[in-house]
């Protein structure tokens, strides 16, 4: 396969990001290859149960 790319000027006013997380990439520039892999495991049944009042707040954090 042949591919021809012509890059002209690229102008962005501003960028505002809360979080670049879990093997993500934010790139202002060029690259040839990006491989991002991430495995995350927090199933729903990992929620905490307790008679303490504070766990209700923790579940929200999960």
């Amino acid at each position: 396969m042949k591919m021809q790319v012509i890059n002209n000027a690229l102008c962005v006013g501003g960028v505002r990001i809360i979080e670049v997380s879990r093997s993500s990439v934010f790139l202002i520039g060029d690259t040839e290859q990006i491989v991002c892999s991430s495995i995350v495991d927090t199933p729903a049944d990992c929620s905490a149960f307790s008679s303490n009042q504070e766990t209700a707040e923790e579940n929200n954090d999960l």
Partner: protein
Amino acid sequence: MKRWSLVRGMKVNSVSLASIFQIGDNDRIEPVSMELAFREGDQSSFKFGEENFEDYPLFTREIPVPQNTEPVLMTIDNSHSRIQVGQVDITAVLFSSVMQAGSNLKMKTEARIKHIRHVGSNSAGQSLDSGPVSSE
């Protein structure tokens, strides 16, 4: 010819957990981070150094990489070109993420996170991949 990256200003609050914040060019970036946030049962029973990544298949299994089956002949014309960005505001760069103003050739990022939480006597079962290989 490489393109220029022009950034007027950058404001980054935190770069942590094997993340990279780079200004300029480089060849290759390969950050790896593994995390095991643990809290199972009573908090007082937790001791540092008890858990090993090898006990959980999630941290040792091989991640499949898509194979490039077709050769690509790519020509890039960057003449009279640049990437121009105004103000960049980022709150956090976390877990082997990359923020770069500049060019590179290859990036390979990897993050594996497990976040076990069983608290109290009424915990509701286990996750599919959770248990240590040697059962408790």
